[in-house]
């Protein structure tokens, strides 16, 4: 029973979303609004059962029983900060919500500064020049590739120079850099196609499976319903227009 109901709900929601590709319609709107609620609820239940209860409520109770005041404070303070976010709804004291996330801003900035400079800056220099250290062991092809990589990276960086005007030599180099950017974009686009088509295949495969007698032709019924709706709608609209004119 629950399997057949599941088949109808699944294929229904799947087709409702796909129907948007034809045009906007009430069924898509239903799926869209249902999803807005369900999506948020999904994250809220995940936060409650997988984060708050095991990582916050559990330690808090344990600390409370043991009288571990340090842990208690370390949980109470962020809770107060979190509650301060809710002051958003009261304009006069809404500034309090700043307290709620400023520490997050500082934390993430403090985290990003050294890691950005070391992993993405210094290690990228290293990665660019490292092949040249073993130049004697490289084939001509590999050496050429390393040189292209170096020149390409540098010319892309020229494209990102902001405080100099892009004309003359700089313009030429930065235009050369754009070619590398475009190759990256094209390659990255082409490489993603496979994964996306696989996903679509998965959805269609499911729909085909649910069109079996075993599932009471769930997909077929819903497609039929949608088609009837679109025909009726088209017919009705024509009629309305005809009546108006």
């Amino acid at each position, binding site marked *: 029973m629950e399997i057949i109901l599941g088949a109808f709900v699944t294929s229904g929601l799947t087709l409702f979303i796909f129907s948007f590709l034809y045009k906007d319609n009430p069924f898509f709107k239903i799926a869209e609004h249902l999803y807005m609620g369900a999506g948020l609820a999904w994250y809220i239940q995940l936060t409650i059962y997988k984060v708050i209860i095991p990582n916050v409520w559990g330690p808090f109770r344990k600390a409370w029983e043991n009288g571990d005041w340090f842990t208690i404070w370390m949980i109470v303070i962020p809770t107060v900060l979190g509650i301060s976010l809710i002051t958003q709804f009261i304009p006069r004291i809404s500034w309090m919500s700043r307290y709620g996330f400023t520490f997050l801003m500082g934390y993430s900035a403090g985290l990003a500064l050294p890691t950005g400079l070391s992993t993405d800056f210094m290690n990228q220099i290293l990665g660019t020049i490292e092949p040249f250290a073993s130049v004697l062991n490289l084939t001509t092809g590999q050496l050429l590739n390393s040189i292209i990589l170096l020149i390409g990276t540098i010319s892309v960086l020229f494209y990102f120079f902001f405080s100099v005007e892009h004309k003359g030599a700089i313009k030429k180099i930065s235009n050369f850099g754009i070619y590398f950017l475009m190759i990256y974009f094209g390659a990255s686009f082409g490489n993603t196609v496979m994964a996306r*088509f696989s996903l679509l*295949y998965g959805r269609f*495969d499911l729909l085909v499976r649910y069109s079996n007698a075993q599932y009471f032709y769930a997909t077929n019924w819903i497609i039929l319903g949608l088609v009837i709706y679109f025909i009726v709608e088209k017919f009705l609209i024509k009629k309305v227009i005809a009546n108006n004119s």
Partner: protein
Amino acid sequence: MKETLNKMLKIDRRWLFLLLTFAIIIPILKPIGIPSKSTSDAVKDIYDFIDKLPPGSTIILSLDYDPSTAPELHPQAAVVLKHAFKKNLKVIIMTFLAGSGGLIDELVRTIPTKYSKEYGRDYVLLPYMPNILAALTQMSSNIYAFYEKDIDGKPLREYEMMKNIQSYKDIACVVDITGTAILDYWVAYVGDKYKVPILGGVTAISQVGYGPYLQKKQLKGLIGGMKGAAEYERLISEVGKGTSGIDALNIAHILVIVFIIFSNIVLLILKFL
């Protein structure tokens, strides 16, 4: 002429959508079996390995994928299971991913009956186990310490096929099909430590990362993405979801390429008109 061409460039995109729908639906309904140039070595390895196992040996099939990676991995699981049944191997199916339940259910509802295989005699299902590392280590000495009961809550030990199974040393190989790092665990904690042959099935994207394992023979074989599943299906001459999947991907890719080239040709003609 110019107008029709211009119209073609601005064609209603819903026609493109319709063509793509057909490109993917048709192979699902009727797999074509578009040939591929070659079978990759890693797939051939895994096929050979399973093919050479003596009939009656027991293998572990660890299915650790959820709906998000199922399009690529489900066909792999199906084809490996089919191959095992064809060679009269006994299969222990287990999972370490909570979301895999429905998918495994679907596999065992359809495939075993086709090969007239019986639950308990030819295959068993073990329940989901969250504590993966502990389970992997424990099974080296005693499988029943963690899996006292099967998925239906019946004592696992009492099944016919489990009579002579105690630990990894009674297992011919492990096939792990996953979109997660669980395959790495199998390799590191079971394959390297207890010398159990590990075979794998992964998504096309993560396939590249397993190169080193294959090279060092820590993995005895690997199925990559839908392409791998299709190649495997050809090896056991069974047309399945892998074949239809790679057909669909083939056609859809060619469709995109044709569209791109077509729009450029139209553009070129317009330039000279």
